[in-house]
C-alpha cells in the first residue's frame, strides 16, 4: 500500500514537473520578441546580398576565365593562320 502510494506520488510529481517545464518554455518563448536592432551584429546582417555576391562572383570569375582562354586561343590561331598564309605565298 505504501509502495503504491509512493509510486503514485512520484508519478504526480513527474507530471507536474513536465507541465511546469512546458509552461516555462512557453513563457520564455512568448517573452522572446526581440527587435532586430537588439540582436548580435551577425544576426542583423541580411543574407541575400551575401548570397548574391557569392553566386555572382562565381559566375563572373568563370565567365572572365573562359573569355580569357577564348581570347588567347583566338590570338594564337590568328597568328598561326597568318604564318601559314605567308609560307604558302613564298
Amino acid at each position, binding site marked *: 500500500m505504501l509502495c503504491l502510494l509512493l509510486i503514485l506520488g512520484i508519478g504526480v510529481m513527474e507530471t507536474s514537473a513536465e507541465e511546469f517545464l512546458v509552461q516555462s518554455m512557453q513563457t520564455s518563448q512568448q517573452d522572446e520578441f526581440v527587435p532586430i536592432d537588439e540582436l548580435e551584429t551577425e544576426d542583423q546582417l541580411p543574407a541575400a546580398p551575401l548570397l548574391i*555576391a557569392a553566386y555572382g562572383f562565381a559566375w563572373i570569375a568563370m565567365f572572365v576565365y573562359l573569355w580569357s582562354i577564348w581570347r588567347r586561343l583566338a590570338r*594564337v590561331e590568328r597568328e598561326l593562320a597568318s604564318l601559314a598564309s605567308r609560307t604558302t605565298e613564298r
Partner: protein
Amino acid sequence: MMQRMFPPLIVLAMIFFVCAPVFIAWAPYESTMGLVQKIFYFHLPSWAAMFVAAIVCGIASVVFLFKGRVIADRIAVASAELAVVFGLIGLVSGPLWARKAWGVWWQWDARLTMALVLWMIFVAYLLLREYGGPGSEKLAAGVALFGMANVPFVYWSVNVWRTVHPTTNVVPTLVPGMRGALWWSLIGFLLLYALAMMARVRLEEQRATLERVYRELDD
C-alpha cells in the same frame, strides 16, 4: 575525339548550370543559418573542383618529371590555372558565408589557413611558369607535387583539428533535398572543369605549334 566531345559537353554543362538555381532554391533551408547556407551549393563544388584540379596537376607533373611527356606538362599548366580559379571562387564564397554564419570574414583555423596555402602554392606554380625562365617547367612540376600532397591534409584538417569549419560528416548526413542540389552543382562544376581543361590544353598545343613554326622559319 576531344574536339568532338566539346559541343555535347558544353550543352550538358549549360543544362546543369541553368537548372542548378532551381534545385538550390527548392532545397530546404538550414535551421540555424537560413538563406545564407545556400552558398554551400557553390562553395563545396568549387573546392571539390579545385582539389580535382590540384590532383590532376600533380599527377601530370609526375608523368612530366619521370617520363618527359610534353602533353603531361600542358595538362599540368592547364589544371594549375583551373585550381587557382576554382580556389578563388571558394576563397571568396567562404568568407561571404562566414560573415553571416560565424560573425567574422575569416578565421586563422586549420582548414581555412591550409586551403589558402594550397591556393597560394598553385599561384606560385603559375608565377614560376610565367617568369621562371628556361627550365622552370621541372621546378614548377616539383611545386605541383607538393601542392597535390597537401590536398588530403586540407580535406582531413577539419576532422583532425578543432576548427570552426564544419566537418566532413556534414555531406553524408544531408537530407535528400539538400543532397540532390549539392550533387547537381558538383557535377556541373566538374563538367565546367573538364570543358575549361580541354580549351586550355588546346591553347597550350596551339602555342607549342606556333613556337615550332617560328623556329622552322628561323632555320
